[in-house]
């Protein structure tokens, strides 16, 4: 039998500098233009093209304008139900956040490998999702303290808490508040990474099974392939749900900052 070719499921997450930008540096820090940055830029370009295509403001919208408007309407309704009338001013932020993550997830799933271009899902890196979640958390803190001043701390003591229970409840609520940016970024990054590792592992079963001969291919390769097609569909669903959950939880946190509770 030939040398066993080992498929490394983690290789797809490797960050590499592109276009010889390896030595770019600002104040001693390497700022190379990586594949991660390239796909972020691509997601932004695709998103801008998508939105610009729907800005014709026709009275009877065409298909494209209808697609963009259904997305903005969706975000608008999400903020209206979760934050209320005060949430209107966050529509641009939540819309950008949701669409950026959605486009990033979908671009990473595109079967462009057939044409020799290997998509990179930057949402599968905690550095990228962590910055997005810190941005949401920073907005919550700034809005909360600007609007309610030090009264914002009443967020940590729910109404009707007995006096004896205030210190432990305050402590628990404070921890759960401080964990939010971490859990928000972690959820998106792990969900995307786990899905991509799963696809890679299943594809390695198909390839190794095919190399091992017709019997193993029929026993292991073909079922793995069928499963992989199913998991691909599931991943498309997960890409949408994770973008939705990120935007939704940001709305819920903004509601705390706007209205306390």
């Amino acid at each position, binding site marked *: 039998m030939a040398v066993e070719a080992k498929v490394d499921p983690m290789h797809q997450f490797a960050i590499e500098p592109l276009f010889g930008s390896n030595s770019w540096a600002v104040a001693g820090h390497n700022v190379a233009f990586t594949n991660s940055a390239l796909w972020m830029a691509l997601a932004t370009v695709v998103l801008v093209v998508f939105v610009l295509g729907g800005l014709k403001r026709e009275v009877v919208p065409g298909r494209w304008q209808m697609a963009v408007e259904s997305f903005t309407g969706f975000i608008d309704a999400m903020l209206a139900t979760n934050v209320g009338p005060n949430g209107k001013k966050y529509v641009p932020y939540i819309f950008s956040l949701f669409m950026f993550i959605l486009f990033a997830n979908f671009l990473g799933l595109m079967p462009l490998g057939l044409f020799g271009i290997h998509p990179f899902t930057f949402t599968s890196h905690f550095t990228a999702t962590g910055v997005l979640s810190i941005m949401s958390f920073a907005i919550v803190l700034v809005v909360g303290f600007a609007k309610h001043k030090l009264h914002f701390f009443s967020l940590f003591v729910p109404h009707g808490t007995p006096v004896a229970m205030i210190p432990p409840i305050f402590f628990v609520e404070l921890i759960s508040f401080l964990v939010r940016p971490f859990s928000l970024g*972690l959820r998106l990054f792990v969900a995307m990474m786990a899905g991509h590792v799963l696809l890679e592992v299943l594809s390695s079963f198909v390839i190794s099974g095919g190399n091992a001969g017709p019997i193993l291919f029929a026993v292991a390769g073909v079922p793995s392939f069928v499963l992989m097609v199913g998991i691909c569909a599931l991943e498309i669903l997960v890409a949408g749900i994770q973008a939705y959950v990120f935007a939704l939880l940001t709305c819920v946190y903004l509601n705390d900052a706007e209205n306390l509770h």
Partner: protein
Amino acid sequence: MDAEAAKLLGAGLAAIGAGLASIGVGNVFAKFLEGALRNPGAADSQQGRLFIGFAGAELLGLLSFVIAALLIFK
């Protein structure tokens, strides 16, 4: 048992958490469907809460994946 074997065993044990989270996610959607079929009129307005519950249940399973990945790769 050397440290490497113990790490891999620990990573395998962490996968139990992923299975338990799947029960949790199943429960979230099952209960939602149960309620939604009894009162379809109220179902659409509760979708946000459905996904908040889903996100909470799912996060704990994803944490077990993180622990497994840390044990294997670190």
